[in-house]
């Protein structure tokens, strides 16, 4: 396997509603920053890959318009996934493994503000049996949370404490949307949005973008003093049928974690893409993370959840901690689909 590292990461300041800017204008500064930070220009990038969703943008072929923000001239080698940018990063990592290019640019973004996110996400379901019932994303997450409570694997207090911890940690993150939290008891007095989930257990709705530059071998060393090396990366998908899954577990995360080699060394930091507080525990167990692991020092998706970018941001945030020397070994996780149907795990290490 070729040594590939994250050498640069940039993200926007995530907000509920980005006033006045369209997706291209939101994305351009992030692309400029991720390249400028390491002094690389688009013509030196070997492969570009992005992740986004038409249904969030409310336009077919929406990713085409944001290509205008990249500077794709002369023509570039470029591809796109209709998935979170974490999977675009995976595609770029594969391309780097082939050995013909040394650098890749990965970006992803969305504005959830144009549509009603909970309604939009009902379209991400089996169209014959499930979608006609219009179960929204919060209700489905609540089903999973209920399963955890019934199995005795978590309590509502756990959810509140996780929310409090994430958002408090987010105070140190200049890009986070929600910073700071009331205390746990206070949170538990709030009404349910969809029982057993209270508002604090749900992610915010965010507009935002993120970008990563990957580089291989010597190119990585030339671009970063302490590259965050990708030592393992894998992803798996589970059945779509909620009834056929044990919602209290995440076997796809466990398999991906095994394949990525999470257990091969001590983990300092884990950035977990758990949009709902109830999901953090599931992922922690699936990855076998001990109590000493710092989880979501960035504040995680509970502090900022730009759809299609939140997974890529987990990888970026974990990588930054390594690059800054704050951690030696980290796990980053990304999820897609309701109730953690599909999961990607990435293990990063510093020299």
């Amino acid at each position, binding site marked *: 396997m070729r040594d590939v590292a994250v050498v640069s990461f940039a993200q926007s300041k995530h907000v509920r509603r980005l006033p006045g800017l*369209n997706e291209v*204008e939101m994305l*351009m500064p992030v692309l*400029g920053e991720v390249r400028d930070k390491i002094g690389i220009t688009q013509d030196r990038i070997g492969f570009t890959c992005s992740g986004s969703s038409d249904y969030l943008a409310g336009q077919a072929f929406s990713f085409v*318009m944001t290509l205008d923000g990249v500077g794709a001239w002369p023509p570039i080698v470029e591809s796109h996934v209709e998935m979170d940018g974490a999977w675009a990063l995976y595609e770029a990592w594969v391309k780097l493994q082939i050995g013909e290019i040394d650098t890749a640019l990965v970006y992803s973004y969305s504005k959830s503000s144009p*549509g009603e996110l909970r309604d*939009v996400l009902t379209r991400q379901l089996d169209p014959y049996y499930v979608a006609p019932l219009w179960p929204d994303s919060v209700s489905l997450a609540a089903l999973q949370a209920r399963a955890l409570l019934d199995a005795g694997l978590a309590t509502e207090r756990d959810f509140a404490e996780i929310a409090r911890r994430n958002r408090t940690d987010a105070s140190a993150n200049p890009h986070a949307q929600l910073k700071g939290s009331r205390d746990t008891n206070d949170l538990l007095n709030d009404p349910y949005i969809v029982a057993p989930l209270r508002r604090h257990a749900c992610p915010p709705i965010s507009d935002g973008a993120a970008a990563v530059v990957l580089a291989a071998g010597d190119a990585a060393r030339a671009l970063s003093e302490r590259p965050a090396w990708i030592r393992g990366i894998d992803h798996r998908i589970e059945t779509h049928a909620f009834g056929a899954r044990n919602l209290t577990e995440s076997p796809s995360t466990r398999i991906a974690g095994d394949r990525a080699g999470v257990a091969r060394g001590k983990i300092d930091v884990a950035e977990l893409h758990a949009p709902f507080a109830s999901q953090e525990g599931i992922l922690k167990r699936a990855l076998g993370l001990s109590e000493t692991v710092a989880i979501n020092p960035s504040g995680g998706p509970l502090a900022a959840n730009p759809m299609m970018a939140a997974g890529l941001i987990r990888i970026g945030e974990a990588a930054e901690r390594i690059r800054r020397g704050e951690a030696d070994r980290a796990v980053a996780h990304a999820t897609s689909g309701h109730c953690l149907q599909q999961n990607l795990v990435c293990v990063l290490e510093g020299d």
Partner: protein
Amino acid sequence: MGRITALEGIEPVRSVKTPARLEYNFTAGLATSRFLKGISRKKILGERCGAEGKVYVPPRGSDPVLGRPTTEQVEVSQRGTVTSFCVVNLQFYGQGMEVPYVCGLILLDGADLPLMGLIQEIPYDQVRMGLRVEARWVDDAALKPTLASIRYFKPSGEADAPYESYREHV
């Protein structure tokens, strides 16, 4: 797998009609907003990246070659040359126009690439490359920040532009 006797003889369900409706509030973006404000004042404003940049009309927020935001506004002429066109003879949902109609690529004087516009006040089979056209607006009282404020482009009466003058845009 057994058979469900209670369903025997019943016509199988072969399709399910599930109406879905989603509402979106689109943000024009800074560049488009500036452009549309100009439209509401009966001006056609392109944008470019610095004084040496290419003039984009309508501006979409970036110079796509550079991947940088356009920073300067440039008013372009309301007249231009048809560099190509097609005659649309197909009805479709949400169109709101009678067929056949001519959809043209119009290079406004001062712009560096053509924009798409409806061409009217000329029989459709007389529209040609090189035709000189000018914008026909809605009445002043009806001006709004939308491209629909330009009703269409009509022949300006000038002689056709020589092929050499727009050849690189064909």
